[in-house]
């Protein structure tokens, strides 16, 4: 167990934006919530799963909805507490701790708010090791853990509890309720025991986000090559350096999809990288050949600062480095690839682990 202070939270939020692979929502709002809660209620205890009992029950907490709404209609604070407590009440057992369901982006830090307010531990793991756009896309699903009972709460005091037959159905209902609640809802879901999480969750991801954030922050001071230090911190591969030549966006099924075209510089001069995204970066191809695909992680970094750039922030002229990281091993199973592989997102290609192409 160790304590998370304000500085740790800022680092986690910064690193989570790298793991967000272009999506996951701007962690800024979540970082402010968590930071303020720590100022008001004290530091949060971060536990590894090994430090808890196998029977302990863990309920993740998160924000669901449109990132654009989250920066405008911010939560009340009681809403996410209501969601968390409702799941506990329904199950009828004490909940030992909360955790992040999505270590990439905003939801890396939102559970820290809950942990601080309720003075319960945060567990150092998550359900993705990155960010994904849909609710069933978590490693819990692969392990056969249901999303429900799931609670969704709004700032008015409404809470919707649901039981479903599959996580796909949960995603479907949850999306409708989110819209009614104002395109944003605070949620608690995927209750699981520590024993289950030891194989179902992606371990150590909060610490990983923190390490990445700390690396970016210290690279600002030491003037090291920040892209390379981030690459080392994530254990990934540099696949491209270039300038954004064009960004094409479209809305499909309520998702922001598009492609960015990046013209190579330095060692990559003469080549072009195409990045296809749906909220998150999905496929990176160089001169027409796929190099990295979902579920492996693809992050766009500012070449000078190493800071991550979201898909909404991609602009013509930016100088960027593209780095790729291997995804959590759970995603590389047949069930995992069916959930989040290239074909699920409409790309007719096989998933090839990044190490095989870039290693």
């Amino acid at each position, binding site marked *: 167990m160790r304590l998370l202070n304000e500085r740790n939270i800022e680092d986690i939020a910064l690193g989570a934006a790298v793991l967000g692979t272009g999506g996951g929502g701007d962690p800024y709002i979540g970082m402010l919530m968590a930071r303020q809660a720590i100022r008001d209620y004290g530091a949060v205890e971060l536990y590894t799963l090994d430090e808890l009992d196998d029977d302990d029950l863990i309920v993740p907490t998160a924000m669901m909805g*449109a990132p*654009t709404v989250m920066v405008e*209609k911010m939560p*009340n604070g009681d809403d996410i507490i209501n969601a968390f407590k409702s799941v506990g009440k329904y199950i009828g057992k004490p909940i030992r701790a909360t955790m992040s369901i999505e270590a990439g982006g905003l939801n890396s830090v939102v559970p820290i708010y809950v942990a601080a307010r309720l003075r319960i531990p945060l567990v150092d793991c998550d359900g993705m090791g990155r960010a994904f756009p849909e609710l069933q896309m978590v490693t819990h699903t692969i392990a056969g853990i249901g999303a429900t009972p799931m609670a969704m709460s709004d700032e008015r005091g409404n809470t919707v509890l649901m039981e479903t037959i599959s996580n796909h159905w949960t995603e479907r209902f949850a999306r409708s309720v989110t819209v009614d609640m104002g395109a944003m809802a605070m949620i608690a879901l995927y209750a699981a025991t520590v024993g289950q999480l030891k194989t179902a969750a992606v371990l150590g991801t909060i610490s990983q986000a923190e390490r990445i954030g700390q690396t970016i922050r210290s690279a600002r001071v030491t003037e090291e090559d920040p892209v390379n230090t981030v690459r080392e911190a994530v254990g990934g591969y540099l696949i491209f350096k270039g300038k954004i030549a064009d960004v094409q966006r479209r809305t499909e099924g309520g998702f922001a999809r598009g492609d960015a075209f990046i*013209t190579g510089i330095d060692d990559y001069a003469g080549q072009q990288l195409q990045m296809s995204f749906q909220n998150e970066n999905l496929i990176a191809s160089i001169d027409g050949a796929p190099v990295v695909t979902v579920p492996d992680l693809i992050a766009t970094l500012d070449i000078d600062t190493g800071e991550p750039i979201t898909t909404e922030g991609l602009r013509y002229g930016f100088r960027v480095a593209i780095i790729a990281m291997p995804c959590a091993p759970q995603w590389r199973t047949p069930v995992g690839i069916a959930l989040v592989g290239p074909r699920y997102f409409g790309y007719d290609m096989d998933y090839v682990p990044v190490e095989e192409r870039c290693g």
Partner: protein
Amino acid sequence: MRIGIDVGGTNTDAVLMDGMSVLAFTKTPTTPNVSDGIVTALKQLIAASNLDVSKIDGVMIGTTHFTNAVVERKHLQPTAVIRLGLPATVCLPPMVDFPDDLRAAINGRYFLAHGGHEFDGREISPFAPDEIRRIASEIKAAGITAIAISSVFSPVNTSFEAQSAAIVRETIPDANITLSSTIGRIGLLERENAAILNACLRDLALRTVAGFKSALAEMQIAAPFYISQNDGTLMSADFASDYPVLTFASGPTNSMRGAAFLSGLKDAIVIDVGGTTTDVGILQRGFPRVAALAVQIGGVRTNFRMPDTLSIGLGGGSLVSADGHRVGPQSVGYEITRKALVFGGDTLTATDIAVAAGYAEVGDTSKVAGLDAALVSAAQDRIEELINNAVDRMKTSAAPMPVIAVGGGSILLKRPIVGASEVVMPPHFAVANAIGAAIAQIGGETDRIFSLAEMSRDQALATAKSEAIDKAVAAGADRDTVEIVEVEEVPLAYLPGNATRIMVKAVGDLKEA
């Protein structure tokens, strides 16, 4: 004829322009009360050109006065914030991300009230007039008159902010109220922050604009005057005293717009070399490329669109180390005319290097005649390296681009620049800021969310465009000259009915009287 004035932290520059030609220009020190410096500049300008002041059609003033006040935490007044959105937003109250010293400087206090809207226009909770009355009484009792009002999704529906302002005025008739919807875009905290900064600057703005007015009156100039704003367009003086925050980025914008005008180039890299820093920016179609990331002013995150400039510690006053290998970032600043070797001082500066290298004739050239040639050459190498790196970082493609060099320190730039197709040093480069102010246009902007379930994308775009054009005309633009200069569309994820956020900017020439 037009007069353009740039009131900087160090110098007040003024230019007289007739159509596209510069008739006269002058540079004088900025004075603490601002208006004395303007009067001096105008006197010099009029003397230099034998100007009949009745021939002046307009005076355009650009100033960094308000930015400096926030950065230095000076001249800020106590401010109260009312936010409508309960029961939402409670966990992040107003000023939650302000630096402590700024919050203390404005004695910031806040009130949360019911109201606010959802993204689709529904009310979060009903507007409660009695609640606002109660808050207004508390603010009155505290003796505060500067008030910022924000409401959730006010860019979509402004009515709650406006109703609150009317109620507050019943209780506090002399209240200076800033509505967030009049300043910012989607993003409650950033928009609210901008409104708070604006509110706390209102007294200073009123005094400063009154000072501008009295300076012009003293010179018997009856022409209307305008203040230039962040995007390179103009606002009326009265509007500026209501919205000082809109001047925050006008300095670099004016400099880049002036560079575009002087060089005749619309797509280029602009290098503005001042006394202490060099700003590098990119012109696209005659306007500065804007930064994509949130911009911090005085430690506060806002969502203004500021020019994307890279600032490096190199200027005419930069200190040069004894071996010439280090140049800047320390600088003698405005004391250059006392401290540099060529001005009889004892400090080796970048200007001394430029003179020793024969790039320019400034001050007493004999004072640097004895400088070691290896030192001069090493310092030139370092300056070249700093400039090349900065240009390379800002360039948008490998293709060579023209470079426009402006600012008093641009005498440092005599060596070729890597990646530059040419280096243009236009006439009057030292007063590009004032020229940028003089040629500024009038703009209008719209930024809101459209539901493409209710209208086609083309209809939504057309609506947004006509709103922006109407706003530009309302602000004083000649409708015949207004054109759309920027359209940005961001489809919103996870929303039904293909909601999309559309931002449009329209710009036109100032309508002549």
